[in-house]
């Protein structure tokens, strides 16, 4: 595959669908939207691919949801995800499909297979893509860099391209497509893998009080010490139907239970009000709260990435600010 100024030769743009418990993951629609944008740019075909033992059922769902052509790759013994199997299957299929661009999710699975597949395909790999941009030279890809404080505008220079797309970056309508796409079924033998999936555990129940709260007050590493959680709880106490949440480091340190974690590997919330306290705003956290109606961020770092997606930004030491706020309320 050759490319001039970031423009691939004719072929396909392949979106690798995600699924769990036999259902299509909602992110897959966003991947199809991104793939469609790329394909239209260069007049390529979109193929949504579903890998798994029961791929056909999920592929039907994907064709209704996206209206795109879907290929179900039925693989015995492959449940919802196995990185090594994904890489081996995709590396076997994609060259024959003329895949110019492969689109995956910037998720725990996309981040597992995409960079590895880039080695097999001799591809460029851009992870965490948030937007596409046209410039005089062709198409560029925008991703967050430097703790989320900057945007890196990138362009592939050789090989096919593999991207992982940040959840929420490409909006998909919740309705089904006007017309379902064509579904093809491919049955292949399970690839030989050295690693083995033993189980998938649903260990952590999500806190329903958190996902249903109208107001979420979230603590990040910037709260400094666990004693300051009391301030966060008192702030949450100002609101009815409120919940306290935390970023990953706060849960890792045991200051809050993992049930309270918001972000990529925790809960996704969209309350009427989200107050981020001492949270830097790394993507791993913001994917879990960017859909909130109104976002207030309090941080003592004026360049914190969280301010880029907040409605109201407050540069203050929260141990001083919250007590003042409570006293005035």
């Amino acid at each position, binding site marked *: 595959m050759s490319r001039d100024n970031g423009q691939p030769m004719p072929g396909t743009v392949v979106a690798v669908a995600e699924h769990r418990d036999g259902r299509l993951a909602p992110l897959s629609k966003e991947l199809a939207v991104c793939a469609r944008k790329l394909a239209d740019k260069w007049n390529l075909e979109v193929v949504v691919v579903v890998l798994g033992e029961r791929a056909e059922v999920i592929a039907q769902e994907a064709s209704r949801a996206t209206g795109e052509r879907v290929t179900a790759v039925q693989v015995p013994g492959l449940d919802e995800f196995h990185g090594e199997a994904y890489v081996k299957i995709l590396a076997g299929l994609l060259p024959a499909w003329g895949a110019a661009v492969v689109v995956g999710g910037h998720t725990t699975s996309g981040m597992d297979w995409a*960079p590895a597949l880039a080695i097999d395909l001799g591809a460029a790999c851009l992870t965490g893509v948030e937007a596409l941009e046209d410039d005089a030279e062709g198409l560029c890809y925008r991703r967050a860099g430097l703790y989320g404080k900057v945007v890196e505008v990138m362009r592939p220079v*050789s090989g096919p391209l593999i991207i992982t797309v940040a959840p929420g970056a490409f909006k998909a309508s919740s309705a089904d497509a006007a017309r379902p796409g064509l579904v093809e079924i491919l049955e292949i033998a399970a690839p030989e893998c050295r690693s083995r999936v033993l189980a998938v555990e649903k260990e952590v129940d999500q806190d329903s009080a958190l996902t249903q709260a109208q107001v979420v007050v979230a603590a990040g590493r910037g709260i400094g010490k666990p004693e300051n959680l009391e301030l966060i709880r008192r702030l949450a106490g100002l609101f009815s139907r409120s919940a306290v949440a935390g970023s990953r480091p706060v849960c890792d340190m045991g200051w809050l239970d993992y049930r309270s974690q918001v972000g990529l590997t925790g809960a996704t919330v969209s309350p009427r009000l989200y107050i981020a306290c001492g949270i830097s705003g790394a993507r791993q956290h913001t994917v879990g709260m960017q859909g909130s109606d109104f976002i207030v961020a309090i941080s003592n770092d004026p360049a914190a990435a969280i301010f*880029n997606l907040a409605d109201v930004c407050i540069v203050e030491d929260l141990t001083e600010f919250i007590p003042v706020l409570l006293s005035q309320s």
Partner: protein
Amino acid sequence: MRILTCIKQISEPESLFDLEEGKVSWRSPVRQRLSSLDEFALETGLRIKDADPAAALWAVTLGPPSADSVLRRALGMGADHAAHIITQDDPAPGPLAVASALAAWARQHEFDLILCGVMSEDAMQGAVGPMLARLLDIPWASAVSRLEVSDDGSSVTAEREMEGGRRQILELPMPALVTIQSSPQQPRYPALSSLLRAKKADIPSLAIEDLTVPPERAAILRTELPGRTRAGVFLQGNTQEKAAQLLALLRERALL
């Protein structure tokens, strides 16, 4: 058992910078430290070593000459050996170059287990680990928050995190590569005496040019400040005034 941890030096996240002609320019001096997820990777390696004193733990970094400080930190925490692959600072090598250099170097040392942070704290690409595994043709698992070595030392069981708090358990025969997610196993602090000893350690180094590294397949054209997705109104005034403005805003929107 030979364990390798791949670690990276980063600038403190609060460091001040400007964008000059589409490039990051630090307002010197910038404090450097070990990327925190790499610290978790080191801790994972150290815990394996605690349980198996025969295990040897290596730390390797790619970076400018000053990046030796993270190797000294690793030695201070308890790593047995360190190696430094010296690269330019600007432009910093991309993930393919980093993974290729690490692969070329690691091939000479025959490691049983390679540990990386799931991503660097600054660039957040998360690409080096899976790329390195593929280049070495060994099985991998990413975003692992629990790792156990089998009794006979032939395999590891890795618990990797997935969306929505779910966990996938994998068994990987060694040699294998695992990228480590943060977990309650907080990285240990080095003892002062170990740090002082590490400070004087002689760390072998080589230049990235001495290793086979393919050309980059992607380029950063420029770096910009992110657009704001929302109003992003910065409240002005002293602490009392800001608090009053926030309360007024919340009441206005019937949130309070």
